[in-house]
Structure formats: structure tokens, C-alpha cells
């Protein structure tokens, strides 16, 4: 029963992440939606799969390794894209920009 609840939570989070990528105004806020909702939804869905599956222990461990790799890799890529977009010349719409003070 609990795996279906986790699956539903993950799907709802994924839908909100996609809506956030469409609705937010600039790249950095879009990256917020992409990273958080994608990582959270993916981890909950893979946990639900690991609870649902009836196979040997190694298959469950393999799904848990996939969860760990997603949690490790996804924020790293978002950090790289944010830095690259700033260096590319996309100005963020912000209240205070302390990064531009130090790197003119």
C-alpha cells in the first residue's frame, strides 16, 4: 500500500516540476524547479519500485544505487548549468546580486 502512496507523491511532484519549468521567468528559477522536483520525484518513485518488486536482494540494492547516483549527480549538473549560464551572459532578475560585485 505504501508504495502506491509514494508513487502518487512522486508523480504529483514531477507534474509540478514540469509546470514550474514552463511558468518561471528566468533560467535560475527554472533550475530551482528542475533540480528539486526532479530529484525528489525520482527518488520517491525508485523507492516505491524497490518496495514493490519481488526479486532477489541484489535487484533492490541496484535500485537503491540508482537512487543514490541520482541524488549525487542531479544537483551537480544544475550547479554547472547555473555557473555556465551566468558566464554566458544571462542576467538574472534579482533583488541583490553579490556575484556581480565580486566578478565585474
Amino acid at each position: 500500500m505504501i508504495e502506491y502512496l509514494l508513487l502518487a507523491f512522486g508523480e504529483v511532484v514531477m507534474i509540478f516540476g514540469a509546470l514550474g519549468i514552463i511558468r518561471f521567468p528566468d533560467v535560475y528559477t527554472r533550475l530551482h524547479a528542475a533540480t528539486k522536483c526532479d530529484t525528489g520525484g525520482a527518488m520517491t518513485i525508485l523507492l516505491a519500485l524497490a518496495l514493490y518488486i519481488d526479486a532477489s536482494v541484489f535487484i533492490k540494492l541496484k535500485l537503491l544505487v540508482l537512487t543514490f547516483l541520482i541524488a549525487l549527480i542531479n544537483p551537480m549538473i544544475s550547479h554547472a548549468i547555473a555557473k555556465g549560464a551566468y558566464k554566458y551572459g544571462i542576467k538574472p532578475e534579482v533583488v541583490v546580486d553579490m556575484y556581480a560585485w565580486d566578478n565585474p
Partner: protein
Amino acid sequence: MSRIPFYLKERLEEVQKRVLYESYEAQKLPVWERITLTWIVLFSFWIVITANTSLDNLIIGGIATLIIASFMRDMLMEDVRHKGHLIEKIIYFLLLYAPQYLIIMAFRLIESNIKVAKNVIFMDIKPGIMKIRTDLHSDTGVTILANSITLTPGTLTLDVSKKLGETYLYVHWIYVETLNREKAGEKIKGDIEEWLKKIFW
């Protein structure tokens, strides 16, 4: 500005850098502990990926991961603090530190998902880029701190700048609550930095 303060400043920076390097070298793990820890991590990964517990597979995996661990010992385990015996360290990590971190991050992740959903519906954003200071110095520690900051609600790490002895993080904050650096640092980092300072240098 005359010439002498510049010269003194350079000299002071050099001395400070050397002191930092010496204290860093003194706190490193010895070589065989680094090799053993890397070997444990790689061997468990081998067993999980191959999904096969026959004897010849274990022997092949053990030898191959031992060779790789003796080459790669500085990449994974260079930044771990030197404290206590090896077995004591492993038991502490598996029973105390890792579950604590997982519980903290799980609740933070759920909270951040709900917060992003709220932001998508109401569009109440006021973004800003803040500069905060951390006490961590090693590469692994700063990487894990930046990843954790990205997964906590409302923040995204942009860049890291390392001046001597001090590390600064640039954080894109989706709703700026305060402009004070100290308060912002406390709000953004939370108790993750306290946890990371126990393990990483």
C-alpha cells in the same frame, strides 16, 4: 598606497598559506587506512552491480578493486578527518552519522518539493544572489555541502570561491528574507554544516 604594505601583505599571505597546508597535512589519514576505506567502498559497489556471490567472482572483484584502490586512494578519502581507530570510524559512520544525515535530508527534500509547488501556484518569488561563508575547506566537504544546499528548500548553489583559509559560496535564493550575511548563512546552511564538520576537513 606605498610599496611596503603590498610586500608585507604578500608575505603574510604566504605564511598563512603554509600554516594552513601544514595543519591540513597533519590531519590526513595514513596511507593504508585510505586504501582500506576505498577498497571497502569499491568492493561493495562491485558486489551490488554484478549481483553474483560465487567464490571466483568475489576473488576477481577483490583483486581488481584492490589494484584500483591502491591507485585511487587520494581521490575519495583524502579529506576525511583523522580521529579514532579505523573500525571505530566505520561503525560510527554506519550507525550514527549516515542515518542522521539521511533523515535530515529526507525531510528537507519533501519540504522543498512542497515549497516549489507552492511557488509554482502563487508565483510569490523575490530572487537574489547571496554570498555566505563556510568553515569547510576540503573539496569533498564543499561538494557535499553545495549539493545539500541545492536540495534544501529555496536555494541553489551558483559558484564557489576559495581564498586562503576561507571558503565562500554564492547562493541563488528564491525568496530573499534578509540581507545580513551571518543570518542568511545560518538560515541557508542549517545543521548540515555541523554534521559535515565532524567527518570532513
